[in-house]
């Protein structure tokens, strides 16, 4: 279980409209030593980023109002894409047409339900390589 290079805790945000999913992810990942933020939808996510969140985002796709892609578009609008590494975590295993133009902002893709070990490993991996020290904390 590796945090960032500097040893600081990595920030991870889970964006999912289902509360139980949020709790599940939070539980598993905080146990693994990550700093978890939960957001119930796209707006909340943006809000957190605006307030300074920087780290890995686990983003659900199928959400009411703003879905995953809308959220990414919003992040781009805010020009805050630098701050976040986005991993999509979703029940959908085939991305739909909305992905066009936005796929490069999604660094990885996991389907639900996920295996705990796998999730932890991924988050570790990305935090090691793709989050600069300055992005942390």
């Amino acid at each position: 279980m590796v945090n960032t290079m500097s040893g600081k805790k990595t920030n991870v945000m889970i964006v999912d409209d289902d509360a139980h999913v949020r709790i599940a992810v939070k539980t598993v990942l905080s146990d693994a030593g990550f700093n978890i933020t939960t957001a119930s939808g796209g707006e909340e996510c943006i809000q957190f980023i605006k307030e300074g969140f920087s780290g890995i985002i686990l983003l659900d796709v199928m959400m009411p109002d703003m879905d995953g892609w809308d959220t990414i578009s919003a992040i781009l609008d805010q020009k805050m894409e630098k701050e976040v590494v986005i991993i999509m975590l979703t029940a959908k295993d085939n991305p739909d047409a909305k992905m066009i133009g936005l796929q490069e902002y999604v660094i990885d893709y996991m389907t639900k339900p996920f295996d705990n070990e796998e999730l932890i490993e991924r988050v570790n991996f990305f935090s090691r390589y793709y989050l600069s020290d300055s992005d942390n904390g």
Partner: protein
Amino acid sequence: MKIIIIGSSTGGPYILENILKDFPILKVAIVIVQHLPPAFNKSFNSHIASLTKMGVFIIDDHTRLSERNVYIAAAGYHLRVENNRVFRLDSGEKVHGVRPAVDLTLLSIKKRSEDSIMGIILTGMGRDGADGLCYLHRIGGTTIAQDPLTAPIKSMPQAAIETGEVDYILVPELIREKMILFGQ
């Protein structure tokens, strides 16, 4: 000259970890076109650099290809190769919604009797790379698509396979093997 061109999108970095982990120095020029936001170009570069002892560089306009190096496409620019020897960047329109599009890179490859080219398409959304791989195959290059079942997103490798011009459909470990064989 031996050249390997890899195209990947969502899920690519994770797969490339497996492919390039402890990759030996080979007399090949490896070009990686990964769909990434510009902000993560450097990180990706560092990531790849940490995996292999080959030289790893982000491509600049007019960078020359040479073997024993891994070249990372500059995010936000289309990458082309002149005469299979010189990289050219341009900020033209996005293709299939992406820039760089590995299709353009592959399509800029020339058939030269002294060159051996391999093209690999890994996980990703959309269908970038399918046309490029098809073209590469027709001019005599070796073409590989990642086994869709092992890809986080099946789309790109699936589209490539459907062109019928893919020589091998392989899991990441076997892709690695093929690359090493190619470079020897």
